[in-house]
């Protein structure tokens, strides 16, 4: 456990967004995916960005990761402007972004390897984090020999090994079946309980947002703006039975009303943290 606690950096991971706008596409296709968005996230806070497909929540996440540059406003992490991708701001995509040619251990050891950590030491670190996500026995498997849920756990481990200030997650459990998704949500809360990093978690699943977050930022599409911020009052550690509580029901109804955009509306195309749809499918 002592090794894992080393990962926590409780004083770091503050996000300040002031009037952030992000334009995507070029020429006639250009549009404002995010418009004049301001918020602040405390170090160690768990925040969900909730909204329908195409509302710019993934675009905003991509800007936090440094893959997309805002066209206006200020986006700061711990007081400094985000300037390109950095291991301090790790991102977990929906699926299939593990390196297929590396074993689980080698995938997790990638970050330390990039920092020049020696092989024995980086393998030790990778093994430690894989134990944390419950995959200690699967370290030598290639990604395609792992189930979808296991692959996502490796993704989380691969980011956590870098001791990030921010853990950015783009619908990370969206491609999993309902049961696996529930297990992964509990596992994520368990990990976050031990490795207290700031988490920004993008989802369009109201139950997921309510179960996981300290705070939910609800966004509306075209242009992507913040509609409301909801503080989620449930005590931690949380168990899945809170889903059945009346308080949960009330909050869920409120979110549903917020998200209930025009019933005639055609769903907007999915945006990605890379600024375009990188083929993640529906």
């Amino acid at each position: 456990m002592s090794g894992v606690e080393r990962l926590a950096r409780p004083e770091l991971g503050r996000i300040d967004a002031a009037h952030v706008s992000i334009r995507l596409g070029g020429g006639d296709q250009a549009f404002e995916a995010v418009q004049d968005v301001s918020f602040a996230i405390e170090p160690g806070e768990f925040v969900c960005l909730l909204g329908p497909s195409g509302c710019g929540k993934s675009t905003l996440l991509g800007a936090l990761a440094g893959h997309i540059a805002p066209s206006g406003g200020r986006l700061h992490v711990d007081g400094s402007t985000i300037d390109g991708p950095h291991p301090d701001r790790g991102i977990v995509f929906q699926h299939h972004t593990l390196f297929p040619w590396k074993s689980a251990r080698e995938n997790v050891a990638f970050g330390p390897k990039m920092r020049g950590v020696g092989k024995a030491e980086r393998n030790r670190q990778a093994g430690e984090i894989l134990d944390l996500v419950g995959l200690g026995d699967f370290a030598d498997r290639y990604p395609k020999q792992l189930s979808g849920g296991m692959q996502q756990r490796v993704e989380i481990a691969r980011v956590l090994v870098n001791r990030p200030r921010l853990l950015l997650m783009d619908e990370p459990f969206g491609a999993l079946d309902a049961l696996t998704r529930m297990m992964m949500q509990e596992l994520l809360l368990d990990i976050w309980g031990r490795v207290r990093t700031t988490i920004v978690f993008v989802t369009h699943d109201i139950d997921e947002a309510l179960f996981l977050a300290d705070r939910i930022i609800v966004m509306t599409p075209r242009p992507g703006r913040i509609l409301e911020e909801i503080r989620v009052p449930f005590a931690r550690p949380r168990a899945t039975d809170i889903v059945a509580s009346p308080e949960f029901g009330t909050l869920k109804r409120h979110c549903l009303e917020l998200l209930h955009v025009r019933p005639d509306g055609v769903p907007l195309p999915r945006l990605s943290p890379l600024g375009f749809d990188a083929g993640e499918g529906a």
Partner: protein
Amino acid sequence: MAQSTASGISRWALRAVSIAVCLVVWPTASTLRLNLGLVTFVNVPPPTDVFLAAIDFVQSTKAFDHVTSSLRRVASGYAIAAFVGVALGLAIGRSRRAADVLLPPLELLRPIPAVAWIPLAVLLFPSSEASMIYITFIGALFPILLNTIHGVENVDPRLIASAKSLGGTQSAILREVILPGAAPSIVTGLAIGMGTSWFCLVTAEMISGQFGIGYYTWESYTIQNYADIIVGMILIGLLGMGSSALLRWIGGLLTPWHTVGEAR
């Protein structure tokens, strides 16, 4: 597992039958001196003649020199093509500027058949050996180059983004992400290139003075030794097939993640 072994055996059986059919059709057509109008077997030697010619060839003192000369030329031309093709392919696939500078002349050179290169190759290189190596090089280059470009361009942008987020530098991403990501496609290009390299061997060795299987085949044609032509053709076919298979096998060893079983 047992099922796949069974289907493996039946597939090998099918392959054997396929070769056997060829070996039956050929003697039948040539002994009957079949004339189908469009094609005629009147002057095609039967397998028995070819077999005897093959034995003569193997027993001749020159056989070893023929084979080793050709192997050496193909190996040299191919090795240079593999290096140049993969290097150029990585550059073109990764950089728009490299693509703009390098692709137009390469596209212009690509449709030129190996035989058309002979005069220029003779002028370009001081030794005929170098000219021959150049022609096998040109034969292998384009499949390797195009497959490498294709492989590099198809590396999932999210893998590259992930690597950047994990602290990967440009050179580390090239080594750790682009190269292995494009590897299956590069291996395919290398295997096809091996085939086309042999394909150009006869052309290359038309300018050879004395040795080489391509030279042997071409010489047999000029002196109307029809059985020997077929011996040369079959030898080139076998060597080409063998070296392509060797390459796919090595490729399989280099891309082990491609062959492991999926999770259920």
